[in-house]
């Protein structure tokens, strides 16, 4: 039987969701009998090929996030928003309280301990979006896995459902936003 192919990435997130995924510990071994990984920080594959499932951690804070997200959408049959940041912007979205300019000025010009003050403008750097946004505002998302981070049990529950060909349904006790 062909293995289910999964890709994962972290956009404007903290990798906490990925760490939580690894919290499956020994259950990961069992899972790997049914799944294999495409692009993911776990594999170091740089670009996503055709996949069954894409797991996205983090919201959108810059142009590069959007390119990555689109690559995932184009290649993954099922795209899952993982964690608070992907779902509503999360903690990074707290910068939405301020103009982008004042955020950058605080970080690179006026902040405490800033040396050689200047706002980075290298063309290599992805430009920041005016606001950090959830990923469902940019592409169609098939399923949501809330939590900060979602527990390993949540990952297993959802993947388990998908592997069994069921529509994912999180039991109430696993739904947590924090």
């Amino acid at each position, binding site marked *: 039987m062909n293995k289910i192919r999964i890709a994962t990435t972290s956009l404007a997130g903290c990798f906490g969701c990925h760490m939580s995924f690894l919290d499956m510990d020994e259950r990961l071994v069992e899972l790997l009998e049914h799944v294999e990984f495409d692009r993911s920080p776990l594999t170091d594959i740089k670009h996503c090929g055709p996949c069954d499932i894409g797991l996205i951690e983090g919201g959108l804070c810059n*142009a590069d996030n959007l390119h990555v997200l689109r690559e995932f959408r184009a290649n993954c049959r099922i795209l899952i928003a993982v964690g608070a940041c992907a779902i509503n912007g999360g903690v990074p979205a707290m910068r939405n309280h301020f103009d982008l300019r004042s955020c950058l000025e605080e970080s690179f010009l006026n902040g405490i301990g800033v040396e050689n003050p200047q706002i980075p*403008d290298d063309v290599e750097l992805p430009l920041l979006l005016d606001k950090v946004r959830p990923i469902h505002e940019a*592409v169609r998302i098939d399923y949501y896995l809330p939590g900060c981070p979602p527990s390993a049990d949540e990952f297993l529950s959802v993947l388990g459902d998908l592997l069994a060909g069921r529509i994912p349904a999180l039991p109430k006790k696993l739904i947590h936003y924090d």
Partner: protein
Amino acid sequence: MSPAIRTASSEQLSAFIANTCSKSSHLLHVLHELQHRFLHISPEAVIEVASFLDLPPSQVESAVEFYSFFSTVPHGRFDILLSNCTSCGYTANGQDLLQLLCDRLHVLTGKTRDDGLVSVDETSCIGMCDHGASLLVNGRPVTGLDAVKIMRIAELIETGTPFENWPAEWFDISDSIRKIGLLLSEDITAGNGLRESLMRGIDGTLEEITQSGLRGRGGAGFSTGMKWKFCAEAEGSAHYVICNADEGEPGTFKDRILLQSHADAIFEGMTTCAYAIGAELGFLYLRGEYRYLSPHLEAVLARRRVQGLLGSSILGRSGFNFDIEIVVGAGAYICGEESALIESLEGKRGVPRNRPPFPVTHGYLGQPTVLNNVETFVAAAHIAQNGSAWFRTTGTMKSPGSKLLSVSGDCAYPGIYEYPFGVSIKQVLDDCGAEDVQAVQIGGPAGTLIGRSGYKRIIGFEDLSTGGSFMVFGRKRDLLDIIVNFSRFFAHESCGFCTPCRVGTTLLKNAMNKIAKGQGTQYDLDEMERIGTLIKRRSHCGLGQTAANPILNGLQRFPQIFRQRLARGDFEPSFDLDAALEEARQITHRDDAAAHLE
């Protein structure tokens, strides 16, 4: 400090407020005077008014922030509001007059110019729909705008010309009455209806109104006789009569004509009601946009007092005491809703109450109150004078009498048409010289959008009921733009009390903008239908319950206007990606390929 800010020492402010409050203690009145005099209402003024009227400062502050015509930052000495209605709005004649005026005066919409001379903004329909594009300058309407007139206005403002030296004819708002019927063909003789009523007695009067089959002209169509009866029977320390002259539904202006030319009939109707229900005080709640009519109305009231038709012992009948106060609203469509209007009269935000109880038992100050539309009172006065049988000679079984329609939009003869109920849409279209019609909006944005297949339908409570708005859209109009306009209207006017309407109207507005920009997909259409249905069914009051009508009607009857704008694909972002990078491009001075998103 810019000269615009008419600064006042705290003594001056106190004196002004004391003086104003002594004339009328209605919060709205005091706030209007402050706004007019100081071009804004400062935090100090809020505190001062609160202490003078013995109200919590938070109540005054919340009112100031609720009504569009009050501001906490200074407006210009010339304060201009252009209507954004589809009939009397700034794009009504195909040109963006708001932009033109702003460019001309070097001012940004919604921002007072640095020298304090002028501020320009837009506002919901100001009820001048039979006169084309219109604006209010310091509360006075100027109609029939075109590019030339806008240039003239800009000039007069730039030179600081006082209104006395503006062309006087600009401020004349003529009555464009095109078709007269039962009510408009003869005016009542002041006092006649009242005399008849006194002869009939209280029960007789209630019976006569009930027998006439008169139903409310504000849109709801509740039996006026029953309403008066319920109120007369309700216990309370006082009874009140309120005339709803808020006329906020875009495309409606028939009450304006009645206020201007048939004020006697309105007051006669109110006084008849007062007699029937035992009220000693009544209010006419005049929409802020019609504030310019206030002196005229006051004059009619003064005359009627002299004539013994108001005041104590009216027409010599001892114990029949009644008077009427005019209270002017301040730019909030929701205040046309009866319970919101009463809240507003009580000096609060115009938020609709929970019902039951209804105003007939718990209205103004919690006391039994009759609240009727302007036209309803006019009809009641005529019925009092001429009897119920006379009234029933026209109209249909379910809708006796006549209806004033405010016809506007793409037709040769916009204006007021009085028809017997039961007239077909087609008849009205023929009479007003509408050719090549694409659609008609009956009852304003809150009403129904119909296409050709609906033209055989009739005006009446049994089919298309309307407060009076009848907007014609010709073939050349972009119907989608109209719906965008209506969805903006509701999002702007939602009072914000209940979740479905507060959030939902903004979601609908955003979705419509997205479609109009060619960035919507079928997904957005499905979403609009789903949210629209929810808002309609779950909202607290009539505003929310009708706010989705233009979209739902549009999706049902004119699906092609949405579909032809859809983007390819099944999903488009909710925000403009490239625009979201603009701020960063400016900060970093970048414009390379990677600095853009498609």
